[in-house]
């Protein structure tokens, strides 16, 4: 019997099939890139704890009404000015030199009627229930930006790099150098300028 050779399979359509699959996955792929504002919520309310007394001058009150207007320290303000106002407040360093709690790195106006020390300063934000979420996030963003700018400035002064850049590199896992040491330094900057943003219950109007 003569040996019959098997006919070759035509693979010309392979590319078409692969293209079809490729296009399917191209269309369904959503490369997730979720980013956002990280916040820490306070622990649940405990009736037994007496709230500490905070000096009025260490408090920076930001109110947002239902028309999305800002009232900062009893003065109306545009959103674009909020960042600088918050920086001025945090960076004030009102305690005179030589006294306990003196802020040796502050570059603010050192007004006695504003905050004593970034460590003492607290930003209090409160919104109406009807405030837009966009405005709420914008205010949160600007106040966060004020802290980030100050932290950048201080880490630049102490270590020669920017706080936010190094933190982003560590979070992304591509920090070059000693990560533990850098984390320690980040913590140092954080204790210098702690993030103190409190939120009050929204008012109904």
């Amino acid at each position: 019997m003569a040996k019959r050779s098997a006919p070759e399979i035509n693979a010309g359509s392979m590319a078409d099939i692969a293209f079809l699959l490729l296009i399917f996955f191209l269309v369904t792929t959503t490369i997730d890139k979720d980013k956002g504002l990280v916040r820490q919520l306070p622990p649940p309310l405990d009736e037994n704890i007496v709230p500490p007394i905070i000096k009025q001058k260490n408090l920076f009150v930001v109110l947002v009404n239902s028309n999305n207007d800002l009232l900062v320290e009893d003065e109306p303000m545009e959103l674009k000015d909020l960042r600088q106002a918050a920086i001025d407040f945090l960076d004030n360093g009102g305690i005179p030199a030589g006294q306990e709690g003196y802020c040796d790195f502050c570059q603010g106006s050192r007004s006695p009627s504003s905050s004593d020390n970034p460590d003492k300063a607290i930003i209090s934000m409160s919104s109406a229930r009807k405030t837009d979420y966009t405005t709420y996030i914008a205010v949160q963003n600007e106040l966060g930006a004020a802290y980030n700018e100050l932290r950048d400035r201080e880490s630049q002064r102490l270590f020669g790099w920017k706080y936010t850049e190094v933190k982003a590199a560590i979070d992304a896992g591509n920090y070059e150098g000693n990560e533990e040491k850098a984390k320690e330094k980040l913590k140092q900057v954080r204790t210098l300028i702690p993030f103190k943003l409190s939120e009050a219950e929204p008012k109904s109007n």
Partner: protein
Amino acid sequence: MSKFKKKKGGELPPVNTASLPDIVFMLLFFFMVATVLRKNDLKVLNQLPPADQIEKLDKSRTVFIYIGKPSDNYKGKSKEAIVQIGDRIVDVSEVKTAILQEVSTLRQELQSSAIVALKIDQDAEAGLVYDVKQELREANLPKIIFITTPNSAVE
């Protein structure tokens, strides 16, 4: 002499396409690996607000909460913003139980450090967001992240 005979005409040789399937397969595998099929079916409108002071999110220890007006396919009784956790629409008072249930689906060792990602529509109201945050406080999940789109918040 015949060695140097010129070819007739200027015809180009056909391009060899034998490696085309390989290239296509390579791309295909890339997208197959990179694809994450959406876990939750969105039942609410979800247009996120802009912000620029943002940090990256660690996916493995995250549970999501979606807040927004019900989307067209799921229009129910209300036109108000609603809360969606997992695949369910929950009432604000049920957020605590629903989110704790959602956290229990995470890997065991990550449960204690779970992060709650809030994907909130830009037209939602701050009051509802506050209520949800109070629920999270009671559920002892203090670490939250407001997911935003990377854009400047001040125009």
